[in-house]
């Protein structure tokens, strides 16, 4: 039913897009077009000096709370910087923050409120793939652009593609594909695998992408066991013993945050990390929380914590972030910073904040970001953002463990091929 509703919405919106084209060709528009979506953004005069409003919608609850917090900090640093230099097109940026409480219904309500009452021009957020998918329906209906800087389910750009959505985070497919290649490079002889992933949209997609890629790399690969702990599980003991009983050559995981901290501490006494090559989302917050318990020699993947891409631009951002927070920036801050600058580049190229013009400007746009250069693919609005992998190690420079043998995989190498995207679109009914 929900999928049907999304489909209908997308069809409506796309059909609305068709109208001007048809008109331009001098033919009358078909009368069946329902005037469903209010064209709010278009009503704003482009010349006005009133501020550009960005609605930042995040999940300030549960496991997403921390990501949302540091993400907002990255976003604010970017906005302050831009405002100090005169804003975008001479207009200041205003940020309105909203909380989804990590609930789908609240997310829908808050996004509607941002669009209708606050009349924001653009949206950035959220953290959870669940709330992200829910709000996609709404802002698509109201023809407002959203950029995701944390939530990364591939469904946002592929299965449920919306022309009003842009992605600056490697999606689940890219992330798992790149991580699988790193694992394969490190343990080329591994043939038998287990996986352990949080049991929801994000984890399911990671596991599927891993399975797809490992079978491509190792044709006789065998997946012995998929473990599905619930998101927020505290006790992994039974999962760990079940995995170890299968004696896999390597284990793939997309556990993250507090879940990964708990898993790591519970697996260590079993000698899990000595026996089994393991890759999971060992990013900066997890490494900090684990402290000395972070297992050296175990593999991690992440989305651009400061130490993974120490380019000059990133190091400059590290200083700014440290001044604001007294801590090192993680990928969540980095991605939000990049999201604001992507928006700025898009608006400046379009020379207006009018939605359709900004969409056109963003398609194919290249941004010199904190994570190096990336381009928005016109096909599905997916940024060719890099994925990072490494091996956990000690570095005397930092009071926490970081990575060595760091690989930076440019997005172009792991983007889902165009033909494959179109294949999925055929099934989900996206026409583009």
């Amino acid at each position, binding site marked *: 039913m929900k999928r049907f509703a999304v489909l209908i919405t997308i069809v409506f919106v796309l059909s609305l897009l068709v109208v001007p084209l048809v008109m331009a060709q001098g033919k009358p528009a078909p009368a069946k077009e329902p005037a469903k979506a209010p064209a709010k953004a278009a009503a704003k005069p482009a010349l006005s000096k009133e501020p550009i409003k960005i609605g930042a919608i995040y999940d300030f609850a549960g496991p997403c709370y921390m990501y949302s917090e540091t993400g907002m900090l990255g976003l604010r640093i970017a906005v302050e910087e831009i405002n100090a230099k005169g804003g975008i097109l001479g207009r200041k940026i205003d940020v309105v923050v909203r909380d989804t409480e990590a609930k789908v219904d609240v997310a829908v309500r808050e996004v509607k409120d941002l669009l209708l009452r606050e009349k924001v021009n653009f949206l950035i957020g959220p953290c959870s793939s669940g709330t992200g998918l829910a709000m996609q329906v709404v802002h698509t209906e109201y023809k407002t652009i959203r950029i995701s800087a944390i939530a990364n389910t591939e469904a946002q750009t592929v299965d449920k593609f919306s022309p009003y959505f842009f992605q600056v985070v490697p999606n689940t497919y890219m992330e798992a594909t790149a991580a699988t290649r790193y694992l394969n490079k490190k343990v080329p002889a591994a043939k038998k695998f287990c996986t352990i992933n949080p049991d929801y949209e994000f984890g399911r997609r990671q596991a599927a992408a891993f399975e797809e890629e490992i079978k491509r790399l190792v044709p006789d690969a065998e997946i012995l066991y998929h*473990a599905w702990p619930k998101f927020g599980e*505290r*006790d992994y003991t039974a999962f760990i*013993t079940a995995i170890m009983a299968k004696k896999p050559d390597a284990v793939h995981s997309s556990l993250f945050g507090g879940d990964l901290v708990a898993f790591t501490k519970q697996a260590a006494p079993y000698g899990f990390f000595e026996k089994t090559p393991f890759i999971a989302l060992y990013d900066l917050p997890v490494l900090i929380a684990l402290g000395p318990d972070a297992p050296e020699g175990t593999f991690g993947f992440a989305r651009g914590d400061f130490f993974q891409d120490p380019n000059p631009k990133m190091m400059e951002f590290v200083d700014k972030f440290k001044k604001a927070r007294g801590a090192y920036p993680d990928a969540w801050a980095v991605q939000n910073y990049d999201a604001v600058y992507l928006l700025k580049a898009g608006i400046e190229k379009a020379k207006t904040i009018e939605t359709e013009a900004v969409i056109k400007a963003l398609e194919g746009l290249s941004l010199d970001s904190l994570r190096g250069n990336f381009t928005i693919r016109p096909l599905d609005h997916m940024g060719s953002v890099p994925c990072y992998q490494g091996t956990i190690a000690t570095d005397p420079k930092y009071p926490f463990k970081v990575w060595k043998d760091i690989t930076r995989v440019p997005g172009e190498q792991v983007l889902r091929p165009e033909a494959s995207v179109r294949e999925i679109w055929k099934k989900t009914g996206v026409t583009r």
Partner: protein
Amino acid sequence: MSFDVLFNQFMSGIARAALLFLVASGLSLTFGVLRVLNFAHGSLYMLGAFITYTIWKTILIPVVGFYVATFLASLVMGGIGIIIEFFLLRRLYARGWPEQLLATYAIVLIITDIVKWGWGGEFLSIPRPIPFKGAVSLFGFPFPSYNFFVILLGLIVVIFLWWLVYKTRLGDIIRAAAHDREMVSALGIPIPWLFTWIFVLGSIIAGLSGAVTAPFGSIALGMDIEIIVECFAVVVIGGMGSLPGTLLGSLIVGLVYAFGIMFKPELALAFIFMVMAAVLIIRPWGIFGRPER
């Protein structure tokens, strides 16, 4: 499937059961005597974990720091228990279930916001204390020694509660009060204070269980709701307010989950609630419970 593999999975289940029992016993105790379904019990457990972390981080005593922090945090939670009972619960005993649930749910929200405000959303972690850092060998397979510590603590709490409820004069009063509070009151026993102390004991157990999970996993927002759902399954299966019931319920939930994970991981969580549903159909008051009067 070889014996050692099954035995290991069994031990994983026992470890989980011990943890569940620690939390659920406090919940069951308050319900058994006070007849209040304390939805906020999981929140007290979460708060206990955060407070343990802060004390541990502040005192920084090597080796015994964690144990001292656990002890102090349990005391603090007892104090918080007094406040909650005195200012809120005490006014609710005579009211209906909906009001009690709403009020304790309010505590859930309040504690969540206190934690957000006081500790932020970061997930925190305490390393395992000495001498429970490593593993011991069980039939040639490693078993984390901290899990033994948790099981041991679970056993101590079982024995302590059993002794308190069945072997002391206070226990006689508690059981009598659970049965007929008007009669006990008529005998000149100050019921309000008895209730306060029971709730304090429940809060201490919540704090203690929160503290021991801190080195076990991570300390993070959301751990309250995660545990309370499973605890409800435990007490519904075992019987609300029954100590042996809680023990049996914990064992069932822990073991069903552990073997579910091994044989049918997609349905592991569902199995628990299938058992719960079956118990509700056959014995709505739980295996060891008694029907509501």
